[in-house]
């Protein structure tokens, strides 16, 4: 195809000017886009209202389609069951599923019993649920693993709350609209969940790899503490996720790390349960949270400069935005490595910021 005629403007001043303005607009637009991206990186909740409105507008489409695909999927599986003499098969399968869940729960109960005998009365349980909703869609064309949930702030869903299904942990709430919300799945690269192994109580950080699997990072040096088939439950550290929710199962060992698969498949989960944050102070939403509950900061990206500090942060000076995505290159540090902020300092300077030359 020859070059398009409208790029050759000839001697017409007006046409030349129009073309020039077109390029100016395009490049200015790109600059604006870069600024918008920078704002989104510094302050992920910056455009919460706009994104929430877009979510509200688009989620019903997915929800309707989801019920249609669910209906047809149901027909397909029903026919399949019939041809495999399946009523019995299906019954057995559901029974097996239930037994598997029960087995997992009983394993959890045994481990929990042993632990509770050791530290009596220290647990702070938050078991009630805020909303039960459907997972209606997900980002299938980007490296992020985000899903859409058909419940929003009108149902009491707030940013940061954990989401689980009957099988196990799904993720946590990233953005909320009025009637829909977006979840960061545990397999997303920005998600890190404190877990522990049921077999030997080894704590680890479950970090998503973006392809449906999870990498288990442990602080221990030496022999890999995980074995294939190990089940990991949330440990409750950090105060976001409730403890003892099944999170992942180790599928293979790769050198020092272990690769696990989430126990709960959001594509299969019929319903998802939004729970309140395990310790409400962790999300910085309750002003009257007792100060003694607030743990010293364990995980957190560098704080933005005070001018760009979002509102919830200012209410609780001790709050570290563990929910926000960490900056590249900075990961969760063990509490020993983090310097204790000076008392009375409202904006604690982080080591990454302090290290940069002024």
């Amino acid at each position, binding site marked *: 195809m020859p070059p398009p005629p409208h790029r050759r403007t000839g001697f017409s001043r007006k046409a030349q000017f129009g073309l020039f303005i077109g390029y100016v607009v395009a490049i200015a637009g790109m600059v604006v886009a870069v600024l918008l991206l920078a704002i989104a990186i510094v302050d992920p909740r910056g455009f919460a209202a706009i994104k929430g409105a877009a979510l509200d507008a688009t989620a019903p489409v997915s929800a309707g389609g989801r019920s249609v695909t669910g209906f047809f999927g149901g027909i397909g599986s029903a026919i399949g069951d019939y041809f495999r003499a399946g009523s019995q098969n299906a019954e057995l399968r559901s029974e097996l599923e239930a037994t598997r869940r029960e087995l997992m729960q009983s394993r959890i109960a045994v481990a929990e019993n042993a632990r509770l005998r050791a530290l009596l009365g220290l647990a702070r349980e938050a078991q009630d649920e805020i909303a039960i909703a459907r997972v209606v869609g997900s980002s299938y*064309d980007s490296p992020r693993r985000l899903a859409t949930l058909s419940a929003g702030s009108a149902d009491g869903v707030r940013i940061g709350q954990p989401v689980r299904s009957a099988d196990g942990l799904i993720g946590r709430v990233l953005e909320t609209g009025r009637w829909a919300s977006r979840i960061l799945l545990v397999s997303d690269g920005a998600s890190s969940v404190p877990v522990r192994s049921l077999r030997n109580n080894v704590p680890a950080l479950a970090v998503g790899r973006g392809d449906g699997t999870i990498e288990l990072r442990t602080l221990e040096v030496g022999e890999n503490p995980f074995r294939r088939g190990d089940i990991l439950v949330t440990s409750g550290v950090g105060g976001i996720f409730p403890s003892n929710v099944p999170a992942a199962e180790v599928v293979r060992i790769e050198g020092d790390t272990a690769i696990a698969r989430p126990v709960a498949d959001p594509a299969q989960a019929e319903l998802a349960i939004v729970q309140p944050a395990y310790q409400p102070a962790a999300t910085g939403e309750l002003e009257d949270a007792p100060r003694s509950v607030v743990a010293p900061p364990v995980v957190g990206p560098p704080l933005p400069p005070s001018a760009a500090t979002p509102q919830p942060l200012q209410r609780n000076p001790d709050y570290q935005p563990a929910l926000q995505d960490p900056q590249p290159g900075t990961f969760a540090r063990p509490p020993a490595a983090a310097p204790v902020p000076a008392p009375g300092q409202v904006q604690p300077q982080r080591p990454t910021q302090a290290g940069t030359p002024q």
Partner: protein
Amino acid sequence: MRGIPEMNRIAGSEAEVAVFDLRRRYVPLLSTLAAILLALLPIVAATPLLPDFGFLVILTWRLLRPEIWTPRMALGLGLVADLVGGQPIGQSMLLWTAAFLVLDLIDTRLGFRDYMMDWLVASGLILVHTLGGWYIGLLMGADVAFSILWPQIVLTILAYPIAARIVLTLDRWRLMR
């Protein structure tokens, strides 16, 4: 249309002229918007596999009909794609407009492109677009290996001929009287 469609090549009334005009103007825009809205498909996927349909279709229109859109068209459509797809606002705006500017450059440098050349250019842009999305995700904290995106890139490149077929058909229908 009245009568035999093939015979009825000339608009019979003012209304028909208006309909033809609307169709000629808005089919590219509406088809691209439809492709962007495909991101709402109720698929819950564990790994990125399916193409970014919006980018594929806008790229195909741009390669097939360079004259209908200036680069700033990609800005608005990119904003829609960002709002629908849940990326950080600005990602598609930036990447799509940059792709349009690169294509303008290629058009001024290159005297002639045929179908295979289009496919090659599209493949390069798809690769760069995915890389850009991955890097912005990295800045946002999603620390994933780029290697998990190769299946999606390959599938998107293989989907280009199909998209080109569909867009060609739409274009022919758009210009048909």
